[in-house]
């Protein structure tokens, strides 16, 4: 299955802003009650804000122009009451809407992370880690900014704007329509330009992602850059990415700010219309000075939010571009579904490959018609030249991938019928590249291990000693409490492999796969490991991939894996002969 997000984005048809928004709104569908309350607060608040100028206009016409000061006081008291009520509704409007958006962001982050957890290994192989990290971190941050800051202003502004528009039309339709005319032009302009703006922003986001994965790659491998004296290479590559980013950023910056002065211009034109047309109406006796003052307020009330909306619109576009990239991930489905229970066969091998074919992509088949059987309690070795398909075979045993044709049977059932939990309990896999989480050795050994997770250090040490792993723990300076970092050279590769080994053994799997898991460990420690492996319960099946032959000399059976074909070698001697004579195809 194709998981390459960059390729997918080219083939996927662009979703419209509205469709994207609708999908986003589904995330808050369950908050209807709160939303209604918030809407009520918003409406009350805007009406109160908008009635203000009307009352003021009325005061001018009725009392100020007629020199009735007690009337002025009377209306002032009414205004004060309105303003006090607005104080209350305005607080609630923000509080309610903000609560909804914070919870929505929370749900959104959870669903992205959840999705990332569901997707198979191929997804992570096909995408650059830097790009993924940028997608998840930066793009959710863009949404975060929009939701935590812009959205409330957005709604508040829209309600004020709509209210002002309604008042303008109700009081004097002709004047109102004339005042709103420039807004229609703005709307048309906005609609016409918005795809362009969105495109510019999407391009910029992409170049930002490219730049950060560039930096990430170079910085993490800086020692190679130093040792090969390619500091200039780093500078050059970064320079290209930086320049590219500059270009797209200017593009998106100009696109984003194109509206600001235009909005100002139209707002002023509207004021001019009110002034000229209003005075004309007054002269023919259809309008009053007080209403003119109210109208000037309303047109400010209408166009000022519009100007802010222009800025908010940018944030909105940014957020939607981010949402686009995120929903691309959300729309992916794992290609490793758990299928319905099949019929379990009895009297079968613990694990069996039946005519398995596999390739990482469609044009390149890696495994061709592989058949093999693993019995309970035995030790198997996979040997063969590099690139022959050993790791691929092991990955299929652990169901990191599904075969393109053929079946993998575990305990007489199709491996696809097991839930991930059942499967991973049965199968332990020590990966070629050990991965550690930032934390202590203890955290890492117990990672994902429910059985011992509440053990104290003493209890855990006892468990480790009982599992014959005590001698390995001694290699770490502060034992279980030794601090390790996920990246960097805080401990050696060999030590990382030891942690991965302990982690896997303590999970007590039925099948334990070691993919060159001891390659960087010295031979004496390795003998310890080999003793530990031998002392595993009789029922444990071991699958060992190694280049160092002493690690496999105790194997019950040896499979020779070369150019995607797996054949049985009768003995270590046979395997050696095959290895020495075998022509490397890779």
């Amino acid at each position, binding site marked *: 299955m194709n998981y390459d997000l960059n390729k997918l984005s080219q083939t996927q048809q662009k979703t419209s802003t509205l469709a994207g928004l609708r999908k986003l709104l589904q995330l808050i569908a369950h908050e209807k009650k709160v939303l209604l309350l918030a809407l009520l607060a918003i409406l009350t608040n805007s009406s109160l804000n908008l009635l*203000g100028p009307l009352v003021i206009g009325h005061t001018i016409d009725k009392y100020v122009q007629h020199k009735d000061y007690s009337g002025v006081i009377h209306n002032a008291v009414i205004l004060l009451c309105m303003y006090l009520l607005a104080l209350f509704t305005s607080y609630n409007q923000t509080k309610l809407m903000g609560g909804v958006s914070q919870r929505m962001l929370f749900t959104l982050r959870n669903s992205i992370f959840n999705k990332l957890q569901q997707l198979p290994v191929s997804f992570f192989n096909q995408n*650059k880690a830097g790009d993924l990290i940028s997608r998840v971190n930066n793009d959710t941050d863009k949404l975060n900014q929009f939701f935590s800051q812009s959205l409330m202003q957005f709604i508040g502004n829209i309600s004020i704007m709509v209210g002002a528009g309604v008042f303008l039309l109700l009081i004097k339709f002709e004047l109102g329509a004339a005042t709103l005319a420039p807004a229609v032009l703005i709307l048309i302009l906005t609609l016409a330009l918005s795809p362009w703006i969105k495109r510019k922003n999407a391009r910029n986001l992409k170049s930002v992602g490219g730049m950060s994965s560039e*930096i990430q790659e170079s910085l993490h491998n*800086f020692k190679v850059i130093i040792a090969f004296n390619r500091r200039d290479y780093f500078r050059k590559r970064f320079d290209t990415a930086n320049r590219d980013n500059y270009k797209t950023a200017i593009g998106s910056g100009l696109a984003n700010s194109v509206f600001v002065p235009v909005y100002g211009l139209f707002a002023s034109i509207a004021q*001019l219309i009110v002034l000229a047309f209003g005075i004309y109406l007054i002269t023919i006796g259809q309008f009053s000075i007080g209403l003119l003052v109210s109208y000037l307020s309303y047109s400010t009330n209408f166009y000022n939010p519009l100007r802010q909306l222009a800025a908010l619109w940018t944030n909105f576009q940014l957020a939607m571009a981010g949402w686009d990239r995120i929903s691309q991930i959300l729309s992916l489905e794992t290609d490793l579904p758990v299928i319905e229970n099949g019929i379990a066969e009895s009297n079968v091998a613990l694990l069996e490959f039946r005519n398995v074919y596999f390739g990482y992509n469609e044009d390149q088949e890696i495994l061709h018609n592989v058949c093999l059987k693993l019995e309970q309690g035995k030790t198997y070795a996979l040997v063969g030249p590099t690139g022959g398909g050993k790791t691929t075979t092991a990955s299929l045993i652990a169901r990191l991938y599904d075969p393109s044709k053929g079946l993998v049977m575990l305990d007489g059932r199709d491996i696809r019928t097991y839930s991930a939990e059942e499967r991973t309990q049965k199968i332990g896999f020590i990966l070629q590249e050990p991965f550690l989480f930032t934390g202590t050795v203890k955290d890492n050994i117990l990672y994902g291990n429910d059985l011992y997770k509440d053990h104290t250090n003493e209890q855990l040490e006892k468990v480790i000693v009982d599992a014959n792993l005590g001698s390995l723990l001694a*290699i770490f300076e502060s034992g279980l409490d030794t601090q390790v970092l996920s990246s960097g050279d805080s401990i050696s590769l060999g030590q990382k492999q030891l942690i991965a080994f302990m982690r896997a053994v303590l999970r007590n799997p039925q099948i334990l796969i070691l993919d060159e898991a001891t390659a960087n460990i010295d031979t004496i420690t390795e003998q310890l490991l080999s003793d530990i492996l031998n002392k595993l319960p009789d029922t444990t099946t071991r699958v060992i991939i190694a280049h160092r032959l002493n690690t496999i000399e105790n194997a019950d059976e040896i499979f020779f894996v070369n150019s995607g074909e797996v054949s049985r070698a009768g003995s270590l001697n046979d395997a050696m002969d095959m290895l020495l004579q075998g022509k490397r195809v*890779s």
Partner: protein
Amino acid sequence: MKTDTQKPDKKPPGVFSLLKPYMGLVSLLLLFALLSNGVNLWLPKIIANGIDDYTKQHFVFGDIIKKFSLAVLIIFIFGYLQTIIQTYASERVARDLRQKLADKISRQSHAFIEKANPAKLLTNLTADVDSIKLFVSQALVSIVSSLFIIIGASILLFTINWKLALAVVMIIPIIGGTFFYVLKNVRALFIKSRGVIDQLNKVINESILGAALVRVINSQQLEYHKFLEANTEAKRYGLKILSFFAGLIPIVTFTANMAALTILMMGGHFVINGSMSLGSFAAFNSYLSLLIFPIFVLGFMSNLIAQASASFTRISVVLDAPDIVDGGTLKETLRGDVELGDVSLIYGQKPALKNVSLSVAAGSKIAIIGPTAAGKTQLLYLLTNLIKPTSGYVHYDGRSIDSYDSESFHSQVGFVFQDSIIFNMSIRENIAFSDTVTDESLEKAIETAELRDFIDGLPDKLNTVVSERGSSLSGGQKQRIMLARALAVNPKVLLLDDFTARVDTNTEKKILTNIQKNYPGLTLISVTQKIASVEHYDQILLLTQGEIVARGVHEELMRSSPDYVQIFNSQQSTSNYEHGVAH
């Protein structure tokens, strides 16, 4: 009022110093901003005059429209120029700052990068630069024009009616004070919530980089819980910040409304008793709405400035780091004598190497063996100048490693790292990583590393792009590419760090023979686990816990070092076996 609104300007002298090289651009920017804002202040005045003229019955229609249109046009043009310059100025500042940072980082040592932490440097280059960009594009102009409008509008109000003006201007300190109080609290919360977001990102990053492990162990749920915890915390801070803002806006609006009420009551009174015109009364209302927005803006901008100066402080730490002293000038061709004299290395707290001395004659082969965490890799790092010894010396051809020109030095010393480091570019670029590589030496390196068949089998041959972290290659293929990379510079000294670990025995033998044949006279220093591969070497060192516990040729060590014999025995069966096959 002054103390309140101008405070943000004084706080970060650092960020403002950044603008020095762009003085021309910035002045132009401010000029346009002030021009358009200045004219903006004129608009209510025009309207007020219009209304007054009308009430006094000598209203000239064309005149007022002309004035108004002219003002609007000026505002538009200058406003437009301002946004364009704003974009260019901010992007240029960002680009140059990134460039400067990258240059600086590129000149730093390995130790610096490890200590500064690549993830943090990434933040410096992206998020921190972005917040400075935001400062230039928004804060700068907004602050200057806001101050201008506040002061300008206040002055105009005072010229119209000083008593009413005094009452209206009262709102500035009230709103300013509210902002100051809320933002002070919110800023503290922001800093804390940033920490939570960092935690959130850490969980995301580790779950992406460790995706394979998570799936093998089925710990998705565990990762999800970690994430949920951080995310809940993030939500809690989000809601806390929200409550502050929810209170801020209503108070500010209410204060502004009170000012409108004051205008109505006092202004109404003045109009009734004839001491103020109706037009001026309308103008007061207009100026009030002009006045409030800039106060808002100043409040928010002070936040932006605080963020930008925090970012700038972080960036400055990197920019101000001392350059590594690159004193070496020697460019001579190395013979290949290597000597370590009494070298100790303290890594963090613990000593990684203790008083290690060794000497390797040009063209000879030496092996370093020893258990995990013995300090073998650090020893190789010392030999490539990636790290410097705490005490003792490293000599090449009898001269200190520091006296060599680094470019010339690194082009003569090849290093095959233990961990596979493959860049996301074509195989050709991955191998010909140094710019001194010729096609000829590239070919030789590929042949020697036994990569010919593999590369020929690829769709685009040498131009095939291998993915990041090399996930599409097998462990052995990656190792051989790394070897070819080291050989392609035609090194005089080759350092191998556990090269044979992931390459099968057959290929390893072929490769070592190839090296002998194609690179005669090469000094070879190999860290390894396999005694069998190095039995015939000129010297074997046994390194344990940072100390050399035994040295000599194989036969000597077999006689003199029980530790060595133990290692040898642990590999016995295989060694015997391999000999059997080889002979």
